[in-house]
């Protein structure tokens, strides 16, 4: 009996508590920069695509929602097409971890509802953003030893010139 | 006043006729409820609002609900309706009709000869106070007798409904709940 009255009283007191509900479309929740939301493809500081079409993200993806085709232009690999099927994606972030060039990144954005399921298949033009994303100043080709037009072997950052094996000098 | 009285009476008679002729038990009971409500209206028009509302509360509101309750628990399906239809045909009507006719004739003779007091038009309605005074004044013995009857009914209901423990007769059901809802009620109608 007393317990019932106490319950009623405690429930009544909740009338004066603050609401915990976030009024979502007007009030946005804070999302950390490392939040795993919509997936983007980033560019390096020169404005080139970072993606080298290595397929590691597609291999890492547990739900197989990424598909891409390698193309080659002036010695650089790039994806001819790059599709992410967001109706399958589980936003696990494995693709981001697998990516050797920081090209694929997850962003703090989850507002991607669609009325047509087909629209959830994002093409490369939907995925590619103009900036470097979370890793500014990083360019894979500036670090790797691969020779590309405008940068020969040994000219990358922190790279010693290639050893001339035909020379007898130490 | 007399027109509405006639109207109520007509409704009561029609509903009662429907009670007799319906084959589906629940429909018949619903017509009976309508007949009781019409009777309550008749009582009210005759200047007995208290009796009218007791009719509604006790008969329409409690007893008939229990009737409906029991009928719906029994799940009287279409076979029973067919059987009732077969009962309601042919010469089976003759004897009850004759008996009812006899009653009607007696009633009419009684009304004609003035054995039943005519309804006093425009008399003060008999409210709860008057009914109470009458019940606990001149009719106190009747009240006491009916209370004895009700007490006896209560005691026997307790006797019938008591839990039989131990190795006696098997109880109705472990929790004392009557079986018969899931078993008897299918969608076979």
């Amino acid at each position, binding site marked *: 009996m007393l317990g019932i009255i106490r319950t*009623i009283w405690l429930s009544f007191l909740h009338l004066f508590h603050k609401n*915990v509900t976030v009024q979502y479309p007007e009030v946005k929740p804070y999302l950390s920069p490392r939040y795993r939301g919509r997936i983007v493809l980033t560019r390096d500081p020169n404005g080139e695509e970072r993606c080298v079409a290595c397929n590691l993200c597609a291999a890492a993806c547990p739900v197989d929602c990424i598909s891409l085709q390698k193309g080659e232009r002036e010695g650089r690999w790039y994806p001819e097409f790059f599709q992410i099927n967001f109706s399958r994606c589980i936003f696990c972030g494995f693709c981001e971890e697998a990516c050797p060039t920081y090209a694929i990144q997850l962003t703090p954005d989850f507002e991607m509802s669609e009325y047509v399921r087909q629209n959830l298949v994002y093409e490369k033009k939907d995925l590619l953003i103009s900036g470097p994303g979370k890793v500014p100043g990083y360019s894979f080709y500036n670090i790797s030893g691969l020779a590309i037009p405008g940068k020969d072997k040994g000219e990358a950052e922190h790279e010693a010139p290639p050893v001339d094996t035909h020379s007898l000098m130490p | 006043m007399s027109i509405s009285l006639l109207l109520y009476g007509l409704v009561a008679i029609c509903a009662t006729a429907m009670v007799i002729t319906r084959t589906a038990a*629940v429909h018949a009971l*619903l017509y009976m409820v309508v007949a009781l409500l019409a009777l309550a209206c008749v009582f009210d028009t005759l200047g007995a609002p208290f009796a009218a509302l007791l009719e509604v509360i006790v008969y329409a509101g409690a007893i008939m*609900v229990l009737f*409906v309750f029991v009928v719906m628990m029994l799940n009287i399906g279409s076979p029973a309706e067919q059987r009732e239809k077969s009962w309601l045909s042919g010469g089976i009507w003759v004897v009850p009709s004759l008996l009812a006719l006899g009653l009607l004739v007696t009633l009419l003779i009684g009304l004609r000869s003035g054995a039943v007091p005519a309804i006093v038009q425009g008399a003060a309605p008999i*409210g709860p106070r008057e009914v109470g005074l009458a019940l606990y004044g001149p009719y106190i013995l009747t009240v006491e007798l009916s209370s004895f009857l009700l007490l006896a009914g209560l005691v026997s209901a307790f006797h019938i409904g008591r839990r039989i423990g131990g190795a006696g007769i098997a109880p109705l059901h472990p929790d004392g709940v009557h079986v018969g809802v899931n078993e008897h009620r299918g969608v076979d109608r």
Partner: protein
Amino acid sequence: MVWWWAIIVILGTVFGVLAVAALSTMLERRLLGFFQDRPGPNRVGPFGLLQVAADAIKMLFKQDWIPPFADKPVFFIAPIIGFLAVLISFAMIPITPSWSVAGHLNVGLLWVFGMMGLHVYSVVLGGWSSNNKFALLGAMRATAQMISYEVFMGLSLLGVVMTAGSFALSDIVEAQKHVWFVIPQCLGAVVFFIAGIAETHRLPFDLPEGENELGAGYHTEYSSMKFGMFFLAEYAGMALIASLVTALYLGGWSGPILPPVVWFVVKAFLLLCFFILLRTALPRPRYDQLMAFGWKVLLPLSLLNTLVTGAVLLLRAGA
């Protein structure tokens, strides 16, 4: 009463009850929200008030489906019975001395009880005619619950009727000029309120619906406006019990300074809120617990209340 005033009062009461029933669905959802630290429906219109209209439109335009295995005429008439019974009961409620359809009727309380007795039919017939085992179980529970609790409701009222010396609700309100009946009749008031909750099968006594056991109980098969009528009847019934408690125990329209109608509405509104508070606070008892509570606690309490009131009245009359 002049005839045109009578028509105004009748129409006002009918539409007022409809509006109160519709708005109390809204009130319930908002208040439940507040009790659970959330805002409740607040999107449609100012403060979400137009949610009522949105719900009504949704209800009206849903497909009105009668199951092929149902008993069609009975299925059709059941919600109408329930709704009308509650609506007609409001005729006896004296909202102010001048605003009541028949508040002075000398058998007013009995009328309300008669209509409550008829309200049982809507639930029973709705459950039976659906020809669905969940609906039937709900109807079975509803019958037993409503008939038994009507007994305690009536018995708990006897104290009030004895003290006021009348079955007319306006006389009962007049008799509370000096002291509200909730003080001398506190036991009766509590029993009446509990029985009223059970009678309108509101939570925590919503066993006829019991959505986690019976789907939706007796109205499982109902859709569209037929369901809407059950729904409106439930909320109108809640308002009816609140108004009855106000008139019988809380002095009805009487109160200082403010006009009578304000007092009545405020008291009834607070009781309505209390109904909703009970819903949020208390869990549903088991069926046998409900019946045992009724017959083993409420019945003796209401009899005791009647006995003590009668004894006090007799002593006072003798003195």
